[in-house]
């Protein structure tokens, strides 16, 4: 790590004599001591709960029974991995995440391409398109549950009634589709912003070169723009995946994981195991599995971000 430069205390010293700028070990330590409380706090707040979770995941504990805590090796992990509901939750999480990310990327790219063109009122449109991302997730979930999905007075059914379709009881008949629809609405702006940043970082001369080379608009997009956007799209996919895997508000407020197990995802599964069944050991094990999976995704995400800075420097 490089040391910060020493600031010359004298004001306006135009011809200040050169001084040694390599601080001693003591100086370096002194300079960093003020950062220590923040570091300790960060460790306490993030690492201690994680270690606690790992500890519990190796012990049998149910809050409803007064048994002593017992070290059980990997029994909790074996139970969780053998649990059909857990596997359903994993599958649901994958379906929810994959479809939401795919749809929001596709819509995000389309909207970003439109927003990249100059037109009257562009900044207003851009602001309006970003708004869903600014709405609190719990509020968004409640809004969709009542204003959009409600079979009696929901807007979706009203729109469908105009073309003579329906009514559909969205949450009961198409639970996963409904959640994906709502999540896509919420995440499209995020993808759009990332892709828009990518579009605006593209050299206009490259696009002009393609024009002179005789490429039509679609060929230019497919052969020149899309490859340029690839890393931005990858970044969107990975960041989006990390966040959408953790979706809790929408499931809790709209479907409670139901009907049956239809929309049970991992966060909601862990919540139920902890606060409905009070199986602390098993839910801790499930939590550790989810964290491990998320870390794997995060490592890929970081690698992509680093590549982004290296690629077109």
């Amino acid at each position, binding site marked *: 790590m490089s040391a910060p430069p020493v600031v010359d205390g004298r004001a306006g010293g135009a011809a200040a004599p050169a001084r040694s700028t390599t601080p001693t070990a003591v100086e370096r330590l002194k300079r960093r001591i003020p950062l220590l409380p923040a570091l300790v706090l960060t460790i306490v707040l993030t690492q201690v709960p994680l270690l606690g979770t790992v500890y519990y995941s190796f012990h049998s504990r149910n809050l409803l029974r007064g048994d002593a805590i017992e070290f059980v090796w990997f029994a909790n992990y074996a139970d969780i991995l053998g649990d059909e509901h857990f596997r359903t939750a994993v599958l649901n999480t994958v379906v929810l995440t994959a479809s939401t990310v795919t749809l929001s990327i596709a819509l995000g790219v389309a909207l970003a391409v439109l927003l990249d063109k100059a037109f009257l009122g562009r900044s207003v449109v851009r602001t309006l398109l970003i708004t869903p991302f600014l709405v609190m997730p719990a509020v968004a979930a409640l809004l969709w549950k009542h204003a959009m999905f409600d079979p009696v007075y929901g807007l979706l059914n009203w729109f469908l009634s105009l073309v003579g379709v329906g009514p559909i009881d969205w949450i009961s008949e198409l639970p996963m589709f409904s959640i994906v629809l709502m999540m896509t609405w919420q995440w499209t702006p995020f993808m759009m912003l990332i892709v828009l940043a990518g579009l605006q970082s593209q*050299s206009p001369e490259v696009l002009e070169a*393609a*024009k*002179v080379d*005789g490429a039509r608009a679609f060929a230019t997009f497919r052969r020149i723009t899309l490859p340029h956007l690839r890393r931005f799209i990858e970044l969107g996919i990975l960041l989006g995946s990390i966040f959408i895997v953790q979706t809790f508000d929408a499931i809790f407020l709209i479907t409670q994981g139901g009907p049956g197990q239809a929309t049970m995802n991992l966060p909601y599964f862990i919540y139920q195991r902890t606060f409905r069944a009070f199986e602390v050991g098993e839910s801790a094990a499930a939590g550790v599995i989810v964290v491990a999976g998320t870390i794997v995704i995060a490592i890929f995400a970081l690698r992509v971000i680093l590549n982004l800075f290296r690629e077109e420097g």
Partner: protein
Amino acid sequence: MATITYEAATRFYPGSERPAVDGLEISIEDGEFLVLVGPSGCGKSTSLRMLAGLEDVDEGAIRIGDRDVTTLAPGRRDVAMVFQSYALYPHMNVAENMAFALEMAKMPKQERRRRVREAARILDLEPFLDRKPKSLSGGQRQRVAMGRAIVREPQAFLMDEPLSNLDAKLRVSTRSQIAALQKRLGVTTVYVTHDQVEAMTMGDRVAVLNEGVLQQCDSPRALYQRPANAFVAGFIGSPAMNIREFAVHDGHARIGDRDVEVSDELRAALADEGLDRVLLGFRPESVDLVGPSEGFTASVQLVEELGADAYLYCSIAGTDHAGDPDIVTRIDPARPPRVGETVHLRVRAGHEHAFSPVTGERLSS
């Protein structure tokens, strides 16, 4: 290959009263190397981009051969362009970069590969065909941009300051390579630069633009020897021509402490225009150091020694702007005068250029 004709081509940028390019009239012959040169903002790049189809032509027309291309899309004009930033496709390797236009033209793969190989051979790019642009040096990228133009075998090459991102040494060698390549391929070329040395060394003809208006379009030699107006005179040549306004009395121009007779022709021209002052221009290389009895007196303000040449920056006696050198002259570097010394200078007969102080147009022939 084809001729290119600008017919009173005019371009207004939205929101601007003054046209960026104002009634440009140039006919470029088949196989000719034409350089558009001028200070920044003179409309040279806009003129080139109008020819490429990247800017609209608001008035007038542009023809390539006998085709009117004024409203044609860039890709259908059959011209290839080399950009200042090279504008290589960053995710394609060198071969794919060069083949892209051919692929867009739906050329068979065999032919595509043949042309790319041929261009790579001409430009010494064969070892780099699989490399991405980011792993190439500046000079190699420049050659890829050239290659992308060559493979198309277009009607014309359009080059927009293709050398300005290279270092000084590479620029000089690439300059002669491009000129030689153009001669060899015989493709009509329009080349934009702000560097008058590039313009003079590369062009068959050079078109000087200023504020969107064509000032003069002629061979480099003619531009140098007979500039059409004071702007061209001052723009072409390095160091710039000395151009000063002098009073004229009884057929004599007063230069410093000495009266210099003006030619009968110039006297007649001045009389026609009713002028009693004249803009006289003389190049540093047309001014000689002479003995004390001849020429006008000047004091040396700065001596610039470049090895092969030396330049004296002097102020002419009898003029009052002390800080600003009035005249620059090229001298023999063997024995340069010292700063502060008084010297005597004379302009070689017939080497002066006279311009109207009102219009800036050339007066003498």
